[in-house]
């Protein structure tokens, strides 16, 4: 069954723009990205949109559908009433390039600020070993497809442009947590997470978790554990006292603070 879908699509660039109305033929079972493509093919040949896989795996088609940050290729039209007008805009936290395409380089700058893994010496036979439970722990974080919807939704930068230099954002707290839980990594990033990455700016209101298309429990499994690790390092008098008199948590052996 096909029907005419009413759409409002934001068109413009960094000098201005507006929501424009369209009607486009769609069929049941299609997704928002299909409708956008048909619009481009039939009515708005110069409509700019970024996409690659159409399977929710490349993280390119991030946008906002009826005000909610989503992947266009994973947003089914069947979830909306056929009579409803669907509004599609670019992500509202990053500078717009044109139409639905934004400049997400903020995220790549933040990625570069994050020190990579630094593995310790190899075992005597030249290999490195990790036990299965320790490997499994980080798997959830590795599902990230870098769509940056979480970065886009986080009110710390979405609502406060001036916070961008001081705040790495949820996608990178995920990375901090993954590395801090890594048994072979020799960096201790806890102080860095608080100072340079600004994890203290996050007020755990969980919007990153709400929008993650990979259903990563960003707040519960990465940010809060990382905040607790920072608290071990900075806000726990018992740990501080232990360090003063030379008792260190054995689990942290072989780590150097960054």
């Amino acid at each position, binding site marked *: 069954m096909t029907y005419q879908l009413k759409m409002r699509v*934001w068109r*413009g660039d*960094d000098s*201005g*723009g*507006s*929501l424009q109305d369209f009607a486009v033929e769609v069929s049941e079972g299609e997704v928002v990205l299909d409708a956008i493509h048909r619009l481009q093919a039939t009515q708005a040949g110069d409509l700019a949109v970024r996409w690659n896989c159409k399977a929710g795996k490349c993280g390119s088609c991030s946008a*906002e559908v*009826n*005000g*909610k*940050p989503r992947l266009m290729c994973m947003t089914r039209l069947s979830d909306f009433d056929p009579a409803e007008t669907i*509004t599609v*805009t*670019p992500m*509202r*936290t990053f*500078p*717009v390039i044109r139409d639905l395409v*934004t400049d997400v380089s903020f995220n790549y700058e933040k990625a570069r600020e994050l020190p990579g893994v630094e593995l310790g010496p190899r075992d005597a036979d030249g290999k490195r070993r990790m*036990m*299965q*439970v*320790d490997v499994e*722990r980080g798997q959830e974080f590795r599902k990230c497809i870098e769509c940056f919807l979480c970065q886009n*939704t986080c*009110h*710390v930068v*979405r*609502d*406060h*442009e*001036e916070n961008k230099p001081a705040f790495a954002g949820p996608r990178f707290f995920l990375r901090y947590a993954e590395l801090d*839980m890594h*048994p072979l990594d020799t960096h201790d990033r806890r102080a860095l997470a608080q100072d340079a990455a*600004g994890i*203290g*700016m*996050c*007020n*755990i*209101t*969980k*919007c990153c978790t*709400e*929008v993650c298309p990979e259903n990563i429990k960003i707040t*519960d499994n990465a940010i*809060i*554990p990382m*905040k*607790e*690790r*920072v*608290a*071990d390092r*900075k*806000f*726990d008098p018992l740990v501080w006292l232990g360090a003063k008199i030379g008792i260190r948590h054995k*689990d*942290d052996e072989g780590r150097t603070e960054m």
Partner: protein
Amino acid sequence: MAATGVDAPGRAAIGARTLRTDRWWLSPLTTFVVFSAFVVYATWRAFADKDYFVEPYLSPFYSPCLGDCVKGSADFGTPFGGFPLSAALIILIFPLGFRMSCYYYRKAYYRAFWLSPPACAVAEPHTKYTGETRLPLILNNLHRWFWYAAVVVALILTWDVLLSFQEADGGHVGLGTLVLLTNVVLIWLYTLSCHSCRHAVGGRLRHFSKHPVRYRMWTWVSRLNTRHSLYAWLSLFSVAIADLYIMLLANGTISEARFF
């Protein structure tokens, strides 16, 4: 002042605070109304200084009773016997601090009371934002200390439940016993599903493989932790209901339904 946030220069000029069409305001509004009602009730009851004890039940708001307590309600002595105000105020800081610094309640009050943000992708009304980097909110990092205290409080409330099975003339089970029992179960679920508990039992480790027992405990707490917000709500209700029931008994409005 230059526009910031979603209207900042360079971003798509959309203008609206949000384009969400669903009822995003419903959840923060509900939280606001229910939490406010609880705060009003709890404040009134904490200052009331009466109707908190009726043999063998002690209201959780007043337990442990350490001040100038009514006869029979002080199970741990009255070290603060000279305290001029309600005995509830002496111990209130512990449950209050625990809940105020709880990761779930933080989310709830930042959204519902401070609108920061009211809902996802809905612009907040504030022009400046520093999160939990400064006083007073940086103190939320002390949550684990309140958690240690909360374990002690939960143990004391458990003791109260055990006492509620007894009366001068022997064993006893009344509706009040069940109310207190339900409350203490929910308090334990809330306390044990805490994120700081999850961290303490095993989350802080880097090698699960070297600590199999703690790893096992961490998996249990993790399972409870996924329902932490539910327990936060249920235990809030149960504590208020337990107090209300005891108040109504103590001031004679109702009389106890006794099973044996």
